[in-house]
């Protein structure tokens, strides 16, 4: 691919304008899914085409881009998308959360609290939180319009009757600014509290489903629950084996075929920074 033959950040200007208009509507109506004319991208659906289009529409020459996949900067999806924007936009990239101005993510929110003027772009596979409960778009649109979410509460209640607790552990539905119920994308529910009144702007892009939605900074984002079954996040009975963190989301990593395994931070930047800080403390 010769970058000379492409516009800055790959997309043509009319497409960027269309996406930018959708982003502004999403910001004005937090949690509402704005339809947009999603384009064919040079990667298959399911690889972050929605996130990539949102990133391409907001990205500028002075931005510093970070891309993570399951918290990691060095998995295939993250490396490919970072390389894509390096090539088509020539922007600086980083793996450090605090250095980035735009962070595109699949399935995690960085452990380090995001700051004002950072932008977090989520890759979203299925934007409609009610889709598995009601397949008709005409009906889910009405439910959203009326803020009628009884069906979602029934689903969570059925979890409780079947398992004794709410068994939904990822893509856990949230209500935004007291109106729209929204799918936070398949992030673990561990990350839901980070969305609440986050200082950074959150943008969501679903390429195949052609939807964009947004949460402005400092917005109320509440995970759905019941008074007697309040929302709770995952906890581990051991710390990260690499950095010792007790407050981060841990991945279970299988080490051999004899059942040996370890638990380590899924956010690689967070883990590495903690490890190097500990190394410096040890060596003075």
């Amino acid at each position, binding site marked *: 691919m010769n970058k000379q033959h492409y516009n800055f950040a790959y997309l043509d200007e009319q497409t960027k304008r269309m996406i930018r208009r959708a982003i502004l509507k999403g*910001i004005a109506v937090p949690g509402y899914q704005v339809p947009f004319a999603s384009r064919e991208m040079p990667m298959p659906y399911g690889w972050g085409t929605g996130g990539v289009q949102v990133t391409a529409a907001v990205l500028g020459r002075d931005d510093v881009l970070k891309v993570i996949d399951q918290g990691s900067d060095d998995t295939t999806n993250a490396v490919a998308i970072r390389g894509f924007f390096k090539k088509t936009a020539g922007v600086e990239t980083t793996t450090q959360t605090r250095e980035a101005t735009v962070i595109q993510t699949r399935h995690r929110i960085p452990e380090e609290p995001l700051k004002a003027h950072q932008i977090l772009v989520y890759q979203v596979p299925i934007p409609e939180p009610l889709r598995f409960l009601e397949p008709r778009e005409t009906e889910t649109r009405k439910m959203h319009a009326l803020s009628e979410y009884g069906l979602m509460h029934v689903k969570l209640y059925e979890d409780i009757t079947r398992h004794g607790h709410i068994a939904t552990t990822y893509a856990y539905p949230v209500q935004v600014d007291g109106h729209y119920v929204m799918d936070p994308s398949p992030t673990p529910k561990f990350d839901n509290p980070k969305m609440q009144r986050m200082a950074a702007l959150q943008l969501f892009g679903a390429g195949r489903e052609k939807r964009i939605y947004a949460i402005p900074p400092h917005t109320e984002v509440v995970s759905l629950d019941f008074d007697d079954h309040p929302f709770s996040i995952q906890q581990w009975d051991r710390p990260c084996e690499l950095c010792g963190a007790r407050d981060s989301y841990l991945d279970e990593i299988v080490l051999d075929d004899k059942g040996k395994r370890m638990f380590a931070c899924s956010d690689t930047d967070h883990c590495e920074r903690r490890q190097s800080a500990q190394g410096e403390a040890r060596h003075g």
Partner: protein
Amino acid sequence: MGAMSTAIQRGFDDPVHDSQRAFRAIMAALAEPGLEMALDVPAFVPEPLHPAAATILLTLCDYDTPVHLEGVLAARQGVRDFLGFNTGAPLAAGPAEAAFAVAGYNGGLPDPTQFSQGTAEYPDRSTTLILALGDARPGQAVGLRGPGIADMRTTSLPGIDHAYWRVLANNRAAYPLGIDVIFTMGRRIVGLPRSTRIAIQGG
């Protein structure tokens, strides 16, 4: 050559990067209601358009976005040419059909209900109002709350008194229906999306 001297002027010098920078400022303005942002503006802006309004039109409009120009603007050939040549945006049949509306140039403030409010299922099908504020009279302060605001943001805008703030507060009554407003003051802008709650002191 006489005709050429009044010929259509181009908008951005560097359309790709100028519009990207402007978009980020417009996005920040709507993401943080009440906070003032400055826009880079094109070298040529047709009278009497505010430079920031010209930048917003160049950044967001194209053949997909019917634009409503307030009477005094629609009467100006220079404004119509600038919009048509640089963006290709058609003029809207009326305010209720407009994706964007440009107003505030005829000495009054517009009634927000004349614009498209969107529909219950598709609240995004609403008008975004680009409203010019004069600099003559200071405005009355209000408190803004809601998405994009950490607690409360006290704001006053030139020429906007409590009576018009009440009109704007009513825009929130049918949420998620309603219009989003971008105020322009020369090259500066302030965003007021429909999600913002307006608290009027003593009102």
